[in-house]
């Protein structure tokens, strides 16, 4: 271990010593002819600091600084070549300027320069050059306010340096590279990131080539500098890519300006520029691609924009209407949200959009090229009503990309009276983009987008597959959670126990007389229950339902015990179905409904788990099969509990096995009623609500269904049925509750039910004779409803006159009667 450590330390030391020896030997050899021309700086060398070596170095000497940390600041005030070997660091310690060069023909190369001060007033800089013909090359500048600052340093060269600005707010940063009155400077191959600007002021004949300016304010800002060249640079993610002002003769070629989306967001901007030649530039995805303002200043010095690609910018071109003489040809304007924006009032009549029959490619061109010469046969005309409106009223830009903005454009096209001004008229539009083969096109990775898209599609596939798999699983749905009575009410054993039916006392009433008030009836029933110590399975207290002002259910109270079958009997509109719907919680009501002790409003799930419902016209999802329907409804009663009949058993019980794969839409009325019964029986609820279960069925279906219901009743299932047919009552009911106009008017044991003929005898009686007649008829087993001026008596077929005979025998005289046939 220690040997390895020794080797680790020794090897670099030996390397360093060998390097020093080699440099010293080289220096010695050079010194043989010019002894003072080479000095070396390192901890073990004759010179320990660059300052010592610079002080000793004669003009023209080379000072070689080996790897290590050296403290700034350095001043090069006579011409020397300062050469770093192995990346020596010169650290300014956060104070002032780190390296200052005031001697012509000096050179600094191969250093890491870091830690300038932060004073904008003193222009604290990494490398400050204040003499002509200086070379700054291959250095790395970090944590510096200004990177490389040339003040009156004509003919200097800044080459392949990497400059990273201080991590300060943009307004407090300095410039990456700054030229001030420095003619003929060459800036090549540098990378500047996170600085404020890269600035050329009063520095004509300069060349800026193959640099990368990223994440700054102005990638490149050139002013008052004629005859400059900007070639092959990348301006990316700056607030403004490159901005050129007040200069003549700029050549702008093969630059890439991309994603410059700051507050101004210009890719490349020209202001007061003359004789610019912009060729083969790629201007992509900026807020404004190319901005041209008051250029040219003189009409005899027009600008030429040729073969550039301006694509996917919010506005491809933003042009000043005052432009005169500029030429755009061979450019490709691709999918800019707005191809050309007019910045101000006026037209672009002064611009030439085609030269010698060659215009530009516009991706929104809708013309054609019949002769195949690559030039459209009709001019490209850009005129958008919305753009015109937005130019005049910029606040309307808020509606950009809205269908309303498109509607305005369509309306302008459809109704020429609204035709907007023409912004661009290119007489010779190209039908294909002409792109130079070697443009510096970006090649974004296709992986992130492809992965995201594939992820979306796969998750959709998974979702749909899951839904279908769920469907198959539900077909196998098995056990369901059973009815669980509320504490203190009927027990599960009681629910399951076979019925021992005891006919109700023949309590009767019309809801109005002292003996027969509905409440009194309920109380009588309730008392009977209490006496037996078996709380009813269904308890309805003072149920009231209004539709608007109409009182459709009028203060009804009733109870159904386990194993008991109670029929709600009455004409159409009596309120039977409404009562059932209130019990189910489908309708809002006043009063109280409890099923197995559970309040339907407060505990609807527990309550509804204890009953099943068969509607008069059962409705199911037509596209499902019988088995799927059963499986679907199975899930609502809970899938985990161990009790309850399976789908197969329910199909078997209701005789639907041969129809299990039939769609519900293909079922007859009888089959559908059986399916409703099967659904109602899921979880073997102790109570079934049946709304006219045999209505509209043929005779065979009626018999089948009644047999089925009888079987269920014999098994101990309690029934509450809204009945319209006497045979339903006759076969199924133990007790009959007569409803009329929403109120209970009578309640009798089925044994006394005489309504089998389906007729009613109306006897005009009032006062004392009415009361005596009612009592007499009830004593003889008739269902009687009392009204202020008449009685209504249920009468059977073949016995329509019997009540009259009975009354006559009782000594009660009846003068008149009406016979009403039940529907």
């Amino acid at each position, binding site marked *: 271990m220690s040997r390895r450590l020794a080797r680790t330390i020794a090897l670099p030391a030996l390397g360093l010593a060998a390097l020093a020896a080699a440099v010293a030997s080289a220096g010695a050899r050079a010194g043989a002819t010019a002894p003072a021309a080479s000095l070396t700086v390192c901890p073990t060398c004759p010179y320990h600091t660059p300052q010592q070596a610079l002080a000793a170095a004669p003009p023209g000497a080379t000072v070689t600084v080996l790897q290590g940390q050296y403290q700034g600041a350095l001043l090069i005030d006579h011409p020397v070549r300062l050469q770093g070997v192995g990346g020596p660091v010169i650290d300014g310690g956060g104070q002032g300027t780190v390296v200052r060069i005031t001697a012509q023909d000096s050179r600094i190369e191969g250093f890491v320069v870091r830690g300038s001060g932060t004073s904008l007033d003193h222009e604290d800089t990494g490398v400050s050059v204040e003499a002509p013909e200086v070379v700054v090359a291959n250095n790395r500048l970090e944590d510096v306010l200004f990177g490389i600052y040339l003040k009156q340093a004509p003919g200097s060269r800044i080459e392949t340096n990497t400059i990273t600005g201080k991590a300060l707010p943009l307004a407090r940063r300095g410039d990456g590279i700054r030229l001030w009155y420095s003619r003929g400077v060459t800036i090549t191959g540098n990378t500047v990131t996170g600085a404020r600007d890269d600035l050329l002021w009063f520095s004509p004949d300069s060349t800026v080539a193959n640099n990368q300016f990223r994440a700054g304010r102005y990638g490149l800002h050139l002013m008052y500098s004629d005859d400059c060249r900007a070639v092959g640079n990348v301006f990316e993610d700056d607030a403004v890519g490159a901005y050129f002002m007040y200069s003549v003769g700029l050549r702008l070629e093969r630059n890439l300006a991309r994603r410059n989306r700051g507050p101004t967001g210009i890719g490349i901007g020209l202001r007061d520029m003359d004789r610019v030649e912009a060729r083969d530039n790629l201007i992509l995805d900026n807020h404004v691609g190319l901005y041209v303002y008051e250029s040219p200043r003189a009409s005899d010095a027009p600008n030429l924009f040729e073969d550039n690609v301006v694509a996917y910018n919010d506005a491809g071109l933003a042009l000043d209407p005052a432009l005169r003489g500029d030429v755009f040809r061979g450019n490709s304007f691709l999918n800019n949200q707005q191809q050309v924006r007019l910045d101000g009032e006026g037209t672009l009549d002064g611009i030439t959009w085609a030269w010698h029959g060659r215009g530009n490619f516009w991706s929104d061109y809708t013309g054609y090229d019949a002769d195949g010469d690559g030039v459209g046969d009709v001019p490209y005309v850009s005129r958008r009503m919305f753009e015109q409106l937005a130019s005049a009223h910029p606040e309307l830009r808020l509606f950009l990309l809205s269908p309303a903005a498109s509607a305005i454009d369509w309306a302008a096209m459809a109704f020429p009276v609204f035709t907007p001004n023409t912004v661009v008229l290119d007489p010779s539009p190209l039908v294909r983009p002409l792109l130079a083969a070697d443009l510096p096109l970006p090649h974004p990775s296709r992986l992130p987008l492809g992965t995201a898209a594939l992820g979306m599609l796969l998750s959709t596939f998974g979702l749909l597959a899951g839904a279908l798999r769920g469907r198959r699983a539900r077909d196998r749905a098995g056990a369901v959670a059973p009815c669980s009575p509320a504490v203190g009410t009927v027990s599960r054993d009681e629910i399951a126990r076979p019925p021992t039916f005891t006919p109700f006392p023949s309590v009767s009433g019309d809801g109005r007389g002292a003996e027969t008030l509905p409440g009194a009836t309920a109380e009588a029933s309730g008392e009977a229950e209490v006496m037996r110590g078996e709380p009813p399975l269904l308890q309805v207290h003072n149920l009231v339902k209004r539709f608007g002002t109409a009182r459709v259910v009028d203060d009804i109270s009733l109870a159904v015990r386990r194993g008991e079958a109670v029929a709600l009997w009455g004409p159409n509109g009596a309120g039977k179905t409404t009562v059932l719907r209130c019990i189910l919680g489908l309708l809002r009501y006043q009063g109280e409904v409890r099923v197995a002790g559970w309040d339907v409003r407060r505990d609807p799930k527990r309550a509804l788990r204890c009953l099943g419902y068969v509607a008069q016209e059962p*409705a199911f999802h037509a596209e499902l099969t019988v088995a799927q329907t059963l499986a679907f409804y199975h899930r609502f009663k809970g899938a985990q509990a161990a009790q309850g009949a399976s789908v197969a058993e329910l199909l078997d019980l209701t005789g639907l096995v041969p129809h299990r794969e039939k769609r519900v839409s293909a079922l007859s009325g009888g089959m559908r009623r059986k399916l409703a019964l099967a659904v109602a029986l899921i979880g073997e609820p102790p109570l079934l609500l049946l709304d006219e279960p045999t209505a509209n069925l043929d005779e065979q279906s009626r018999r089948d269904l009644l047999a089925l219901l009888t079987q269920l009743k014999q098994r101990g299932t309690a029934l509450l049925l809204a009945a319209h047919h006497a045979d339903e009552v006759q076969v199924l009911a133990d007790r009959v509750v007569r409803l009329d106009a929403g109120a209970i008017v009578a309640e009798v044991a089925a044994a006394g039910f005489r309504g089998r003929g389906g007729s009613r005898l109306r006897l005009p009686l009032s006062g004392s004779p009415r009361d005596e007649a009612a009592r007499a008829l009830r004593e003889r087993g008739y269902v009687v409803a009392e009204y202020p001026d008449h009685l209504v008596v249920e009468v059977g077929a073949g016995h329509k006159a019997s009540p009259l005979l009975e009354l006559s025998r009782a000594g009660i005289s009846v003068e008149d009667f009406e016979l009403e046939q039940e529907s």
Partner: protein
Amino acid sequence: MSVDAVSAVATKELRDALRNRWFLMDAGAFVLLSFGLSYLGLAGGGLAGLAGFGRTSAALISLVLLIVPLMGLSVGALSLTGERERGTLATLLAQPITRKELFAGKWCGLAAALAAALAVGFGLPGLIIAAAGGGGQAGPYLALAGLAFLLALAGLAVGMLLSAFVQRTAAAVGLAVGLWLVFVFVGDLGLLGAGLAMQLQAGQLLTLALVNPLTDFRVAAILAAGASPETLGPAGLLLSRTLGGWNLPVLVGLLALWSSLPLVAGYWIFAREDAV
């Protein structure tokens, strides 16, 4: 709330939506047009590296604005009225399922159906662009898809509100289409006209416009695609200056409000009214 009951309704609703002609027409149109737009974007670009998803996003924003709210509104409007009209609502509510579970299940199923349609509508163009070498960043692509889904949920919420109090399917669909017209055209055109006629300030225009969920989506999508607030003129700058970095979260919050408040109101009505 029983997860099983909600998932039973949701699954059923998802399958129903996949059979719903309205929904299939809207979703089909969306998929076809987004496919077409991305293809045209590639053809127009004609070269690798230029045509990526971010480039077709402007066209997709317009497409989403037209179709996605209609998808949400129509399936939402049919959700309860259809069941009510067929009578199946009574059958469902006669089972041990609360109205909350039924409502939640319907919402989940329809939201899943909308998500599936949007995933295909965005996924196919994304794959095509990537396969053709278009490339691009996943972030803006997913952001646009996410915002479109929020917009769909807003439409769904308004649609379900309609279905909670409208009894008839035809009336619900008619109202949904009417609302769609208001959101898509009438509202913005009215504001454009009012802006011109009454010389509304950028702030007033912005406040009024942001009431419309489609504007919330549009502005959020434009900003999420990397556009400068200046793209939207003075109103965009005002939004950016007022909310700073919060402009996108606030817009998403507004969309979330549109996706939830009508839903809560719809449930409130559904829970208190007669079901048949």
